[in-house]
């Protein structure tokens, strides 16, 4: 269970932008995995706290991904 980072996904925005494969590719700590189909992604919970806050996922899908620092809430 992630304690420090939360990843908010908007699946339709990811699908619309065709960003699923890109998300899996760019994340350096493998937070994203293939979803039910090739237009969606799933989150690997065990890796979420490894997030390096590199923002590559948010650049790949600005409308589909939001990284939240739980320690700032």
């Amino acid at each position, binding site marked *: 269970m992630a304690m*420090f980072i939360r990843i908010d996904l908007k699946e339709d925005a990811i699908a619309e932008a065709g960003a699923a494969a890109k998300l899996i590719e760019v994340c350096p700590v493998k937070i994203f995995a293939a979803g039910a189909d090739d237009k969606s992604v799933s989150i690997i919970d065990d890796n979420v706290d490894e997030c390096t806050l590199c923002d590559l996922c948010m650049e790949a899908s600005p409308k589909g991904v939001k990284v939240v620092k739980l320690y700032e809430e």
Partner: protein
Amino acid sequence: MRFYEYESKKILAKYGIPFPKGGVAKTAEEAKNLAADLGGKVVVKAMVLTSSLTDRGTVREANGPDEAAKATEELLALKVGALTPVSVLVEEQVEVERELALQVTYDGVAKLPVMIASDVPRKNLDDVADDTPDRVKRRHFSTLHPMRAQTFRCKELVRSLGLGGSDLNRMTQVVSKLADAMLEYDLTVAEINALGQTKDGKFIALDVNMDMEEEGRFRQGALLEEFGIPMTETRGVRGEPTPMEREAQAIDADDPRGLISPFVEFDGNMGLVIGAGGGSLTIFDAVTRHGGKPANYAAIGGNPSVKKAQRLAKLVLSKEGVDKIAVMSNVVSNTRADLVARGVIKGVLELGLEPKEVITIFRCPGAWEADAFKILEKYGVDYCDRSVSLSEAAKRAVAKVQG
């Protein structure tokens, strides 16, 4: 890698530095025969890969073959920390008029090899330097020139001990040869902890320690072969790794991100998660100087993953008697302070403990420290930035452990 004393003396022999006649025995019977060959009066030394042998009761004097056999039986049954002697070195007793101490090693601050001499033998020279600095003399030398071109430095060192005349010339030869041995065999320490001077003025190496650079073993294949030491043999001072040390190695090997190495277990009660390019040694020293008793030495760096820091924190806290850890480093540019903070807090929480109670101090100034501070504040952990020295941070941590 450390050499047994009898191996160290074989290196001395290559340079013509005299030492007492003797041999290695693996049984009491062998020791008895050796003692008889040597005339009866002998010194029996347990061969175990540790220093300060005299202090640990691993050296006995025997006045005859039977006494030598008895001493050998006792010594081979000894436990020196986690180690058991593999054999004994039986040497003739030598009458000396006085004893000195001599060491050649590297000075990490000056970045030069250094010759050290003292008139206080059979003690740790660092301790002697701390207690009576005027009785320890030093001279640096260069690795760029052969020792024969730097004999004057050896002579200066010996003269600073107050030796003159033929004593000066004789001991200068020993110093010069020991420095030659250190350079040729990639030794990190070449020490004659007790350099005796006999009635006729000759110097003789009574107690010898040598340690070779771990990476040097590939260049020194011929020497290792001569000594019968396989390339795979671990020659750590502490012998085989403890289960905890093995676990640390496994954690390190499981994840290529960052590094936990070396990890060494100690007997204390204060867990350490420390790092940053040499900072870990400074921090360890600071902790002990302020009266702390480290449970471990764990150098962590190279930007470890959250999981690696988490597993390390859990491992350190798993040791019996350890309920507090200090997380400290020098200024780090290549390790994310926030990832380390996440890892150690997560590890503590997974053990069902309170981070603010368990983490005595978090001092990892550098990359992403602002985020680290936010995390630490959220969990109420005491932290500080680079304006607080490593020594001061260690002092604060030790005070909390001591209650």
